Every structure is written in structure tokens, then in C-alpha cells.
């Protein structure tokens, strides 16, 4: 097998997978992939990665994605959570996914960020531009069963960006029961 004389660049394969190529260019790249072993391997590797990402349930859900999961048969337990008021959520056997509904006034928010904070106060992970519903004032946190292995319950710290100013919305506590 001879090496491809003109391999499709990775960014072109990505643009193909996201529909960002013009139709003529997309057709030409796709035809090349069918005839080129090297590019077919690269395309397949990317397709598997993208397929894996599409299967992920993100830590913060949009309402539309939550609705799609429910429509596909995912059994969801919703737990309303107000800032600074501890809530409890039990991962009963008949539940596939916990969704913590963090509530706040987000009517003026242009953007919402979320931090997962350890009980000791260290930021473990930060998520920027998370989905939120300004009208209902909700941020949906998805909690999966295998998160049990992560240890202590994190604190969900929400920030809103309003007219260029960051505002601390609040800390949210959920005690998880895993059985």
C-alpha cells in the first residue's frame, strides 16, 4: 500500500464531519476517502471519536437535550435545588440519570459558568458557557451513576455574566445517595 500523496488535512476531516464544507468540496473529499486507505483510516478514527462524544451525557444539559434523553427512554429523577439550601437525591435502581435543577434569577445573564468545587473549597473543574434557561432560571446538572467513584459530593458554584460583569449566583449542595 503506497502512502497517500495528498492526505486530507485533519481540519478538513473535522469540517466534513460538522457540515462546514461546501457541498462540492465535501463530495470530493468523501470520494477521495473511499479510494484512499490512509485517509479512510484517518476518517474512521475521527468518526469513532465523534461517535463517542455524541454518546456522552454532558455534566450540564440543555433543556432540549434533557427532553431528547427522556424521549429516548432515559429515566430521569429531577431534584430542584436552591442556592445555599442542601438538597438530597437518591439514585434508586429504577433511575438512569439524576438531574439537579439549579434555580436562580438568570433573566439578565448573557452567559453562565459552573465550577465543581471540593468541600475544601478547591475548584476541581470549570465549565464555561453552559446551557441555561433564562426564562425559567434553571441550570440542569446531569449526574450519572458512575460519578459515585469520584468521591465526595461536589459543590456546584454558578456564575453569571451580565452586561460584561461576572456575578456569583450561588453555591448549590446536593447530597447523593447512590443506592
Amino acid at each position: 500500500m503506497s502512502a497517500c500523496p495528498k492526505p486530507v488535512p485533519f481540519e478538513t476531516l473535522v469540517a466534513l464531519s460538522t457540515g462546514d464544507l461546501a457541498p462540492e468540496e465535501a463530495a470530493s473529499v468523501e470520494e477521495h476517502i473511499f479510494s484512499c486507505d490512509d485517509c479512510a483510516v484517518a476518517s474512521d478514527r475521527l468518526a469513532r471519536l465523534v461517535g463517542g462524544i455524541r454518546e456522552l451525557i454532558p455534566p450540564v444539559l440543555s433543556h432540549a437535550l434533557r427532553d431528547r434523553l427522556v424521549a429516548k427512554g432515559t429515566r430521569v429523577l429531577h431534584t430542584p435545588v436552591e442556592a445555599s439550601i442542601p438538597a438530597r437525591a437518591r439514585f434508586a435502581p429504577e433511575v438512569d440519570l439524576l438531574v439537579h435543577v439549579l434555580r436562580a434569577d438568570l433573566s439578565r445573564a448573557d452567559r453562565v459558568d459552573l465550577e465543581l468545587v471540593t468541600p475544601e473549597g478547591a475548584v476541581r473543574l470549570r465549565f464555561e458557557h453552559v446551557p441555561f434557561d433564562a426564562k425559567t432560571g434553571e441550570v440542569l446538572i446531569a449526574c450519572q451513576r458512575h460519578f459515585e467513584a469520584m468521591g465526595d459530593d461536589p459543590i456546584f458554584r454558578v456564575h453569571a455574566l451580565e452586561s460584561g460583569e461576572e456575578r456569583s449566583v450561588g453555591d448549590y449542595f446536593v447530597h447523593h445517595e447512590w443506592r
Partner: protein
Amino acid sequence: MLEPPIMEDEGERAICQKYANRIRAYGLRHLRDGEGAQDLVQLVLLAVLEARRAGRIEDPSRFESYVFGTCRNMAMDMRRGELRRRNLAERATAGLPEGYEPEWPQVDRARLEHCMRELEPRDRAVVMATFVEDLDTDEIGHSMKLSAGNVRVIRHRALARLQACVQGGEA
């Protein structure tokens, strides 16, 4: 009605092995549905093998183009709902060479989740918005106050890092 294979030779198995992943990747891009993509693989492979058996491929030197054209047309039919694909795909499986089983190795989910956590927050947000929320480049750019060009650069660099990470390298 689909006929059983006239001959099952190494050549047919080699064709299946060579093109199954290419067809599936095409299906994932155009049908956005893993099950649909797998059905497409079965349908295209059987159509191509039947054409080959019947000597209907006029220019064997352009075999790849024939496979690609068949794949494109069948995916289009599936999108339009003109193929009652599930029944056909099941019957197509019976017409493929014996011993040929498509394999779809999956990305290790735990590893992928780890690699996602290693990304910069903005990069992770772009990747999730693209492939999980199914937002297009302009929508992401608008919501994150980035140009479409910036979104594309962030996305392909993030995917390159993710790919290296899931394959065992560093994110």
C-alpha cells in the same frame, strides 16, 4: 427479492473489510444515527456485491467510485425515508459472505470522559455544543461571542488533542 449469494469468495470478504468502515463513517456523517449507519453498511455492501456478481460494474478500475456512488444514493434514500431500511438491512446481512462480521471498535468511554475533563473549558464547551447539542458553527459563535473561524480552529484543535489523549497520549 434478495437472492442468496452466488459465490462467497475471499474477494468479497476483502471488499467488505475494506469498505465497511468507510461506509459507516459516511453514514454517521449523513444520517447522524449509529444504527442507521450500520444498516447503510449492510445495504451498500450487498448492492455492490450483487452488482459485481452480475457483472454490472462496467469499469472495475473505478470500483471505489461505484461503492461511493452506491453509498451516496442509498444514504439519500434513507434520509428521504424511501428505504424501509430495517427489514432490508436484516435481509442484506444474510446475503453477505459467510464469516464476514463487521466490527465497530468503540472509543473507551471512561478514557474519553477523562480526556474531555483535560480540555480547556472553552474548548470543551465548543466540542459539546457541536456534537452533543448539535449546534452549528454560527450558533456556537453567536452564543460564545466568537467568529465562525475561531470556532472551527478551537474545535479541530480540541479534537486533535482529544484524539491524541484517547489513543494514550497527552491531552
